[in-house]
Structure formats: structure tokens, C-alpha cells
């Protein structure tokens, strides 16, 4: 791989999310109260754990957005899959089966999205807006309008406890020792591993290049022999699978299947992806950027939560930061000129 030159446009684009994160951390470090409370290993462990769901969702969403689409059903699918996980555990499936089937369920929702988008040729915004309601409805139906608590059936009098995989799933997001940085919960490692894999897939496989091509210009992609429909269906299905995995994590976090969880999560995920440098018109974006975007948002929420600010301050600040983080783009020309002057004076 060739790395973009220092100060070049590509370099600044790649570095932007990191710069945003850096600015946020710097501001926190300047605040005396936050410095001691925020910059603690145990706190970072919490932030990382809080990032996992959004980050895993953002990996799927990055693909969708890079391909020029959008998936508004992400939050509902996460909720649906948290319920599916709960039901599967209740029925006594093992960890592998629970993971597989939940991810499949998410993938199925994505498959439906992609199928409708490509065969009926409809705007993704609308199809996934519809799916948002459908998945939410199904999750409520599956959960019987309640939260699903698989543990509860695991009384002492039952010989074969049906919820035997509960503990393993709970483990994903469990803090073993809350006051230290290590050990990190399994979910964090899983998310990191997936991020690396997906970054390589999107950057350096033929499929990844096709995703970019489709997002950049669908007609051109078709003309260049890319099977746009097949690829799109794959993209939405894969994204759905990621939302499914995020659903498992959501279950693990709440230790229950909650059909009303993750409302508005899709917007958080989209914000993370866009802060990470993706363009909603398609053709641009990156996995590391999106993950950093998710992490930055979690830092902000954590920081302003710790700092005793009232809720409304927190909402205002996060709103402002979303705008700033993306608007930074426009400051780039100046930075670029700065770099150029330096390098030319050398």
C-alpha cells in the first residue's frame, strides 16, 4: 500500500477523524476536573465498551453509505436481534448457534432491504424507513411486547437449564474488574478484530472496490461489468449481519432482549460514519474513520456525562460537535496551504 503524502488532500482526509478525536481529548485535558476523572484506564474501558455497539453497527453502515445507500432500519434491527438472541438463549441453544442465528436474522432483514431496493428499484431511504417500522414491530411481536429475560427460566428446580448460553453471551460486555483498564471485555476485542478485517476488505478486495465504484456512479459500475444488484444485496445483507451482531452486543449489555431499545441508534451510527469521513452521496468513507467517529462520540457523551453538566448541555454539545467534525473539511484548504508553504520553503 502506498501512503498518502503528508499534507496532501488524501492525507488530510484520512487523518481528519483522528484530528477530531485529538481535539476533543485536548479540550478535555485542558479542563482540570475532567483531566483526573476522564483520563483513567477504567474510564477508557467503559468508553470502549460503550462504543462497541455503535462501532459494530458503523462497520455495516460504512459499506452501505460508501455504496451510496443508507440504512435507517439499523436501530430497529439491533433491537430485533437483541430479542432474537434472548429467544434463542431461552430455547437452550449453544453460544455458536445463538451467534449464528442472530447474525443470520440481521442478515435476513438486510437481505429484504437490499432485495426490495434492487428489484423494485426504490430509494434506500424509503425502503429502510419502512423496514425500520417493520423490524420494530416484529421485535415487539417476538418479544410479546415485553422484555425477554432468558435467565428467568433458569430456576434451581430445572435440571437442564435452558439458558445455559446466557452467561457466555453476557460475557461479551462484562467488566470483570471495573477499576482497571485490562482485561477488556470480549466484545471490545471482537469489535477491534472485525474492524481490522473489514478495513482490509473494503480497502483491498475486489468486493470493496466494487462498493466504492457503485457508490461513486452506479451506471458506470454497471457499465464496467459490476453486477450492481447482486453486490448491493450483498452489501445490505452484510450490513444487516453487522447490525445482528450489534444486537447480540445489545443483549449482552442489557442482559435482556428489549424490543424498544436502540431507538434513534441509526442516527448515531450514521453520524459516526459521516464524522469518520464518509460522504452520504457515496463513494467515500473508511472503516477506521467510522470506528474513530463512534469512539469520539462516546468520549464526548462520557466526558459531558462525567462533568455534571445538565443533559441539555450534553445534547447541544454533541449536536455542535457533529457539525464541527464534518465541517472541518472546509478548513482543510487552509491547512493544506500551510503545509505547502512549509514544504516549499524547505
Amino acid at each position, binding site marked *: 500500500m502506498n501512503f498518502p503524502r503528508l499534507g496532501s488532500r488524501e492525507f488530510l482526509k484520512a487523518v481528519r477523524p483522528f484530528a477530531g478525536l485529538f481535539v476533543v481529548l485536548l479540550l478535555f485535558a485542558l479542563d482540570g*476536573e475532567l483531566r*483526573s*476523572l476522564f483520563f*483513567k484506564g*477504567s*474510564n477508557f474501558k*467503559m468508553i470502549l*465498551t*460503550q462504543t462497541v455497539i455503535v462501532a459494530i453497527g458503523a462497520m455495516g453502515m460504512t459499506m452501505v453509505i460508501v455504496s451510496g445507500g443508507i440504512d435507517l432500519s439499523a436501530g430497529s434491527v439491533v433491537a430485533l436481534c437483541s430479542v432474537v438472541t434472548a429467544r434463542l438463549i431461552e430455547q437452550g441453544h449453544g453460544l455458536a448457534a445463538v451467534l449464528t442465528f442472530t447474525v443470520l436474522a440481521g442478515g435476513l432483514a438486510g437481505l429484504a432491504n437490499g432485495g426490495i431496493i434492487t428489484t423494485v428499484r426504490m430509494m434506500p431511504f424509503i425502503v429502510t424507513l419502512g423496514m425500520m417500522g417493520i423490524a420494530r414491530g416484529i421485535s*415487539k411481536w417476538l418479544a410479546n*411486547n*415485553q*422484555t425477554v*429475560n432468558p*435467565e428467568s427460566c433458569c430456576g434451581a428446580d430445572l435440571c437442564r437449564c435452558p439458558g445455559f448460553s446466557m452467561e457466555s453471551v*453476557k460475557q461479551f460486555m*462484562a*467488566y470483570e*474488574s*471495573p*477499576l482497571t483498564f485490562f482485561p477488556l471485555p470480549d466484545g471490545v476485542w471482537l469489535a477491534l478484530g472485525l474492524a481490522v478485517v473489514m478495513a482490509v476488505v473494503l480497502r483491498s478486495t475486489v468486493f470493496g472496490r466494487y462498493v466504492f465504484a457503485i457508490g461513486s456512479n452506479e451506471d458506470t459500475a454497471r457499465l464496467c461489468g459490476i453486477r450492481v444488484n447482486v453486490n448491493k444485496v450483498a452489501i445490505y445483507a452484510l450490513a444487516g449481519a453487522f447490525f445482528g451482531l450489534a444486537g447480540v452486543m*445489545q443483549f449482552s*449489555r*442489557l*442482559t*435482556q432482549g*428489549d*424490543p*424498544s*431499545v*436502540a*431507538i*434513534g441508534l441509526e442516527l448515531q451510527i450514521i453520524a459516526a460514519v459521516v464524522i469518520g469521513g464518509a460522504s452520504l452521496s457515496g463513494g467515500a468513507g473508511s472503516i477506521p474513520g467510522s470506528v474513530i467517529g463512534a469512539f469520539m462520540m462516546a468520549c464526548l*457523551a*462520557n466526558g459531558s*456525562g*462525567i462533568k*455534571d453538566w445538565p*443533559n441539555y448541555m*450534553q*445534547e447541544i454539545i454533541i449536536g455542535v460537535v457533529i457539525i464541527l467534525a464534518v465541517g472541518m473539511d472546509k478548513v482543510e484548504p487552509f491547512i493544506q496551504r500551510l503545509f505547502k508553504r512549509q514544504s516549499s520553503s524547505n
Partner: protein
Amino acid sequence: GSQSGDSSGNGLSIVVIPKGTTHEFWKSIHAGAIKAKQELEASGQPVKIIWKGPLKEDDRDEQIKVVENFIARGVDGMVLAPLDDKALVRPVETADEAGIPVVIIDSGLQTDKYASFVSTDNALGGRMGGARLGKLLGGKGNVLLLRYAVGSASTTKREQGFLDEIKENFPGIKVLSSDQYAGATRDLAYTASQNLLSRYGNEVNGIFCPNESVTVSMTKAVRDIGKGGGMVKIIGFDTSVQSLRDLKSGDVAGLVVQNPVKMGYLGVMTLVEHLGGKAVAKRIDTGVALITSENMTEPDMRELLNPPLEKYLGTGN
């Protein structure tokens, strides 16, 4: 947990985490917590009260984040009204592991890793409401139950208490609908009430509402169809400026009220006692009462209805 930086100088720092912040009920809890703080300070025990609800109300995940963030920050203790009786188990257990004791208020939690549980007996409240409605209807007629929101332990207990009471003691009363949920906001509750009434508006004789937002919205919807003023008997739960008005005007036949000021007060007091090393009771009941237009002028009811919020929270902003 007491090694944290900011608790050394100004005594204990205690965070009080409600389910949300916009309902007037939580304002009273806040007032109770401040009342406790003032009394403790007067007795030479400085306390810092941090009041922090989840950013998005009725979102379990958000409340978990709030709890976690305060574990990371390292407060001395927490008073928590859990949005869910299971989802908040792990955060509370994590707090316990980190040496931060938690007092649960308002709604139950399925663990024993807390210091104490201070709340109303919600099932009893529901039963009181059911009994009153049953009596008002003379043991026969059709009633509706509009549930609050999925998974909220306290309201689920009230709803169950109400249904149990009707089933056991008023066999002549028919429950027309008991599976609709109002949702978390007044607006959702209003739409749900309207839609429910356009179906059952003609046959319904009594309605039970399990919390404040449902009570106010349902009363408004009943007035809309011209059945206010007691033509349909409404039993509500909790108080608000609007529901008291409705009680006075006769639109509402009775309100089951808790004592949120006491709940907030005892929550903080119990926590401080626990932090001081004293043994505290695992379960503390703050009582319920039924208010009707007849007894609402009685002095102790008045105290319940108009808690001196300004005294503790200051006026206006």
C-alpha cells in the same frame, strides 16, 4: 470508591439517577433528595447531590451509560430509580464491585447487591385503584386499562394489582381492553387514548391509568368525546398540576398517590446511613394513598398533593 478526587473536601458526593426528568413526579423526588441534603448539612454532614437522568428518557441503554459513567467518575454512592428490573442489574453489580453502594428507589431490581430498596408498594396501589373503581361502578360495567410502557416494573405491578383486584373482588366487571400500551410521552398516550376511545367510547364505564402521563392524556381524550365530569369514572396514578385540576373538576374520580418527596428523602438518607456504616433495612415502604375530591382538602393529603417543591428546588429556573 471514596478515594475519588472531589469528595475529599466537600464531604460525600451522591448521584441521584431518576428514570427521566420531565415528569413532575421526578421533580418531587429531586426535592426530597435536596431536603435530605439540607438536613444532613445542618447536622454537620456535608453532601453533594448530583441530579442526572438519562439523556433519552425511557431508554435503558442510556440509563446504563449514566450509571457506568458515574462508576468511572467514582462517586461515593448512588440513588437509582431503575428503568428496568433486569437491565440495570449488571451496572448496579459493577458499582457494588467498585465499592459504590446503591440505594434503589421507586422501581424494583432483580439483584440483592443494593443497600436498600425504598419505594411504594405498587401492587397495593393498583389494588387500591381497582377497589375504588369497582365500588364506584357498583360492581358491574366495562372498564379499560391503558398500560404505560413495555418493561417498566413499577407500572406493570400497578397494572397487575388493578387487574387482580377486579378479577378477584368484582366478577361483574368486564375488562374491555388491557393490552394497549400508551408509550412514554404524553403525546403518544393521548393518541393511544383517542384511538382506544373511538372503539370503546360508547360502552366504557371506568378507566384505570397506571401513571401520570396516561392519566392526564386519557382524561383529556375522555373530555374530548363529551364524557367528562364523571360520566366515565377515571382512576389515575400520581399527581400533576393538570390531574389535580381534573380531580377538582370531577373528570377524574380518584388518584392513587405515592409520596415521591419521601422517596427521594429516604433514598438519600438511607444511603448516607449505609455509608456511615450503619445497618439499614433492605426494604423501606413509603406508602400510598387514594385521593378523591372528598378527601383532597384534608391536611395530610394536601401535604402530599402540594409538596413544597420551591422550598428545596428554588423558584423558576
